[in-house]
């Protein structure tokens, strides 16, 4: 029996892997010490667990554990990275920031806040496939560009930006390079010994770890410095104060350990399922895949269904849990800013669905989804006058709509 609704929203959040939950629980109950307590065994064992988890997180991205700073999540990591570096280096390097129009709001809103504080920003518009080019990046950088922030994997369309090439360019320009990798961990290899990335944000809950915990990679060679955004007891070498939530940290460590060990095989399985879904969806007329299919994580499929209204589509397929636009902004009825930046019309942006598959997705669930989409789209389009006009061969772009 299928459990409904089928969860196909793994980019919004993932369930905690049962192996992760098992590791977390003892740290809530019997081993509950404050890792900052230096005077007793409760504190020491918690601190030891925190350091083991730091090693596990570092191992997934081939970094030194000393380069990993715990935060409450990728949103905080992005804020700390961009505000922390921009403020620290503004005096020496300058007050210009480069980012991409399709970044997550955690980056865009942070850059906007810095603009209010007197920084200047350039937002690179991606190509219609969602990617930015090396030339675009080069052209955007200036002598006074203090920070450039480009996400590894887009949360809505799953495209992978050319981080390695961009890093070389940023380094040559003396610009701090930040990468939001919240959607990338466990989905693609990340090697910080090779990448010229100075700061990288991570989240646990997109990779089968718990919510409420993330990390920021802060490069040591060359050493990157940050202005702390949260002051207090001097935890995390003064870069981020606040009691460390041991159970969440242990959970993130375990989740990243599993990702490291299993991602190669897991991603092939998920890619097969995604391609099965893609094939099933492409059998439907007037569907458009959003974002490049080659430079893309295997979990993501983002499709616009022409001639159906987005809201009615979501209602019609409520047996599957998917999102239109990103989860963080889907409470609003605005069309996705990511799809708009790709040059999609409002109509196509409105009728887009993001399917994100994961560890617990089955072939049966994908087949159910394909069938559901065929049925419901057929019904919705039967009711649509636009669809009828399209079928009659009328080019809707030439229609002169009368104002009422």
């Amino acid at each position: 029996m299928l459990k409904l609704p089928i969860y196909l929203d793994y980019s919004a959040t993932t369930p905690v892997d049962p192996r992760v939950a098992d590791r977390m629980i003892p740290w809530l109950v019997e081993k509950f010490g404050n890792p900052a307590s230096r005077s007793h065994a409760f504190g020491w064992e918690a601190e030891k667990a925190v350091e083991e988890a730091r090693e596990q997180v570092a191992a997934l991205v081939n970094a030194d554990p000393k380069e990993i700073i715990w935060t409450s999540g990728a949103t905080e990591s992005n804020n700390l990275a961009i505000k922390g570096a921009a403020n620290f280096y503004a005096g020496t390097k300058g007050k210009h920031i480069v980012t991409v129009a399709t970044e997550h709001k955690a980056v865009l809103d942070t850059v906007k806040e810095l603009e209010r504080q007197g920084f200047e920003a350039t937002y690179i518009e991606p190509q219609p496939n969602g990617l930015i080019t090396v030339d675009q990046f080069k052209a955007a950088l200036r002598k006074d560009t203090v920070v450039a922030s480009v996400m590894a994997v887009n949360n809505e369309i799953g495209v992978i930006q050319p981080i390695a090439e961009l890093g070389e360019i940023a380094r040559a320009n003396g610009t701090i390079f930040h990468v939001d990798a919240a959607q990338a961990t466990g989905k693609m290899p990340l090697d910080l010994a090779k990448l010229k990335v100075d700061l990288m944000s991570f989240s646990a809950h997109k990779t089968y770890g718990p919510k409420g915990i993330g990390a920021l990679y802060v490069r040591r060679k060359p050493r990157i410095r940050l202005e702390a955004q949260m002051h207090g007891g001097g935890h995390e070498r003064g870069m981020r104060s606040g009691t460390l939530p041991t159970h969440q940290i242990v959970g993130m460590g375990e989740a990243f350990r599993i990702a490291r060990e299993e991602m190669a095989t897991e991603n092939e399985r998920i890619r097969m399922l995604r391609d099965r879904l893609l094939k099933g969806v492409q059998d439907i007329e007037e569907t458009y895949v959003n974002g490049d299919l080659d430079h893309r994580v295997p979990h993501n499929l983002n499709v616009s269904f022409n001639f159906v209204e987005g809201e009615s589509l979501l209602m019609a397929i409520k047996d599957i849990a998917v999102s239109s636009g990103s989860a963080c902004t889907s409470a609003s009825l605005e069309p996705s800013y990511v799809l708009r930046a790709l040059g999609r019309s409002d109509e196509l942006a409105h009728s887009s669905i993001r399917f994100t598959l994961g560890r617990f997705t089955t072939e049966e669930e994908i087949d159910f989804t394909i069938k559901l989409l065929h049925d419901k789209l057929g019904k919705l389009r039967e009711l649509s006058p636009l669809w009828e006009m399209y079928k009659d061969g009328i080019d809707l772009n030439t229609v002169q709509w009368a104002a009422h």
Partner: protein
Amino acid sequence: MFNPVYLDHNATTPVSPDVLEAMLPFFAQQHGNASSRHEYGRAARRAIDEARQRVASAVGAHPTEVIFTSGGSEANNLFIKGTAAMLPAGTVAISAIEHPCVREPAKALRRHGWRLREIEVDGECRLASADFHAALAEQPALISIMLANNETGAIQDIAALAAQAAATRAWFHTDAVQALGKVSVDFRSLNAAGVHAMTLSAHKLGGPKGAGALIIDKRVDLAPLIDGGGHERGLRSGTENVPAIVGFGMACETAANCLKEAPLQLRQLRGSLERGLVAQGATIFAAHAERLPNTVYFSLPGIDGETLVARLDRAGFAVASGAACSAANPEPSHVLLAMGIAPETARGAVRVSLGRQNTADDVAGFLRALAATVSQLQSLTALHHTVGG
């Protein structure tokens, strides 16, 4: 099996069974992102709404006054930096005994042209009235005074202080992290007296680490510390930590229910603890102040606090030599120094903080272990003196 007795509840507490039970479903089965519109997301949103209600009603606040954060440190940072960002640079007045997560952000404001004014306390860890009035005369724009001190447990009469500060029209904040769950905390009456904001944390009262809140009067203009996505009415972005928030709500509710009998029990336990300590020659700090019913902060003449707590740990009793968060720092406690305690005495400080699970046996055992440890240490010192001449 070696089962140490935990007597450091002001540092952190174990998650109570009902709290854990409430949290568990939100790790795996109900794992949705509260911003998602599908059933998984809506279930998460409902859970957060219920938790917000529970936290609010435990402290007499309205649910819309609750901003969830990653913990007490973030809530304190959010208040101090968030209000300062909306004001012209002025004076921020804090007590001399604040936790570093109030003191450090207040210091950080100096880079933006603010002046930091620390208000003195007396020898009993009570805010010095004369200096408080002198500070008010300097027209601070922000005031932050903790409700209960994490080290001594001393409680300030926040309502009275806020009422006296009303004429300054400053935003008045209190860090209630240590008070919550130990004494009754009522934002409605504090707010009526002129308190505009209050910080809470889950892990000090049987909730999980990783959740806290800033309770704030909506008239206060606040800029967010963390941007992106617009969660928590735009005042704190980031995917909500659903299990921790649910646990926080449950912990607040449980603590509020326990508040009728628990303090009495704790007070009795602490009474016997203090009598035993005094009999062994201990000085108890802030003994004459109104204090949290669970906290005892003491020192024994000629005994180093660090050494003593390390020995007590080996004997099976977990206590603290200073605040957990600054325990890496070998300096004597800034709280005791502010109280005018001599540095030599302050270096001897040991904090015992009891919890609901502690028993009379725990206290008796602790006193025995302490007596044994102290006599060992004293004979070592005597030996040292003899050998060293």
